[in-house]
């Protein structure tokens, strides 16, 4: 609420003679107070409405997802003991007492993890190329033809919306088992995602360098190379690095459907309850992603520093 002051009352500063300030009278304050109360009520209405929609949604979802708290409570100790079992070898000893036995498949898993990384890398790099080409063609400030923009945008949207593992499922049938369908699946999904992000970047650039190149008689390609590329390069690289991180995680599970990498072995280990194998592989995966995470964060900070 606004401070309730009596009409004509002077503030302390005014009494001291610095200057004379009179608080506004009720005639002026009342509309303000009413507007304030109304704004508050409107906000409360939105919040209540939102909460009601959410509650109904949750109630429906509760039934839809077959939520059963009893089942959860029964499962909870099981979850705790699962973690315990992950920490034990099949001999019954703790995993860290015998690292050599724990990581008995180190060679095999390292090769598979390397394959996973390569799948992610090749997929990201190829997707980057698609994303750059797509974003240039989909940007309103670079391409005049609305038909081309519309078509490219829809294609990018399709590539982005279909999950990479669904692409992989179909590609495994077409291309056969192995890393190839995995690479292609990640390429398409990455191309769609980066294409959309890049389009937003390209559409927000400064057009003056572009016009400068055009004024000297540069072709469309020269305009892109000298007018657009220097403005967007660091941004593109930063997004691509983020995507690489994400794709390593994705490539690790793409083997679930037979598209190469460590996923295949991980699936078998989890399904067949080889607990120590599961924890060993997950640990390797986490370490790997963490290293990439840290390196790419450093690189991204350097890239952003280049901009400013």
């Amino acid at each position, binding site marked *: 609420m606004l401070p309730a002051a009596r009409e004509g009352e002077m503030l302390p500063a005014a009494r001291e003679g610095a200057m004379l300030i009179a608080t506004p009278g009720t005639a002026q304050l009342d509309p303000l107070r009413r507007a304030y109360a109304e704004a508050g009520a409107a906000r409360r209405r939105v919040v209540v409405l939102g909460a009601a929609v959410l509650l109904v949604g949750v109630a429906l979802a*509760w039934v839809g997802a077959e939520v059963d708290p009893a*089942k959860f409570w029964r499962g909870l100790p099981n979850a705790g003991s699962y973690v315990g079992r992950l920490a034990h070898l099949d001999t019954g000893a703790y995993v860290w007492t015998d690292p050599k036995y724990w990581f008995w498949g180190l060679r095999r898993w390292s090769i598979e993890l390397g394959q996973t990384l390569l799948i992610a890398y090749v997929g990201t790099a190829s997707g980057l190329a698609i994303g750059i080409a797509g974003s240039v063609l989909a940007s309103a400030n670079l391409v005049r033809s609305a038909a081309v923009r519309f078509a490219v945008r829809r294609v990018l949207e399709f590539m982005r919306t279909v*999950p990479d593992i669904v692409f992989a499922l179909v590609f495994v049938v*077409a291309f056969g088992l*192995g890393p190839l369908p995995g690479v292609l699946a990640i390429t398409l999904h990455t191309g769609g995602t980066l294409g959309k992000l890049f389009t937003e970047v390209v559409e927000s650039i400064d057009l003056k360098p572009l016009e400068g190149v055009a004024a000297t008689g540069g072709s469309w390609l020269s305009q892109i190379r000298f007018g657009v590329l220097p403005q967007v390069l660091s941004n593109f690289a930063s997004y691509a690095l983020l995507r690489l991180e994400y794709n390593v995680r994705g490539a*690790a599970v793409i083997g679930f459907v037979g598209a190469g990498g460590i996923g295949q072995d991980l699936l078998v280990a989890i399904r067949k309850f080889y607990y120590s194998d599961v924890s060993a592989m997950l640990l390797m995966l986490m370490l790997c992603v963490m290293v990439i995470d840290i390196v790419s964060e450093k690189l991204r900070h350097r890239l952003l520093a280049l901009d400013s």
Partner: protein
Amino acid sequence: MTTLRTELLAQPGLTLPKRRVSFGTVATIVAASLAYLSAFPLLDISPDRFWRGLSQLGTIARLMLPPETGGHLALYLDALVQTLSIALLGTLLASIVALPLGFLAARNVVANRVVHLLTRRSMDAFRSIDALIWALIWVNVVGLGPFAGLLAIATSDVCALAKLMSEAVEAADRRPVEATRAVGGSRLLELRFGLLPQILPIFASQLLYFFESNTRSATIIGIVGAGGIGLHLYEQIRVLEWQQASFLILLVLVTVALIDAISQRLRAGLIGRSR
């Protein structure tokens, strides 16, 4: 192709400054391209295999048309509802756990460096495990079905959400907090009136964003038996029922696009109000 540079160099009497490219940049580009090229033989990818697969893919694409329900429309729609339910409840469950965690991981709330570093690093570590792996594990713990999927979505999101929240808390303006303290507010009141009003719009918009991405994850989580439409998609592709598979893919596409559009509107509204 004649670039602008070659065109300009052809002009008589015109000199251009020499371009300087650092050694590091060249080395990075060379290494990256070498790694890219050497990956193909390592991954057993040959042009021959690629072209053969592509023609196969063409055949499959033809077999996919027109999409057909195969008389299972009710079953598929039911699975779709289940998918959305998993995404919604999973996101909510994650948010309930992530909000307090986010405060704990923020440097300006818990000022202990060790606690901060430990929580951040473990969040990063757990973030690297995909929802599909969590789903497999939860299936082992609570059995097949959507409940495992819900828990998988929640566990895979908690860390990412908590990290984002802690960043939002750290980026929050200190002044409202100090103002609350200045008028004699307790530590709890500082959080409630100083921080929460700044955090909530960001949190709500993040939640919507996660709901979007979780809808995507929930569509595939059925592949490992954790409920939702993924199971049907997986089965139809495995038995090469391409028409039904394409119908399911279309269903997923439309749903995801719809959720995206709605949540984008809502998020724009939320962020707009907070500014």
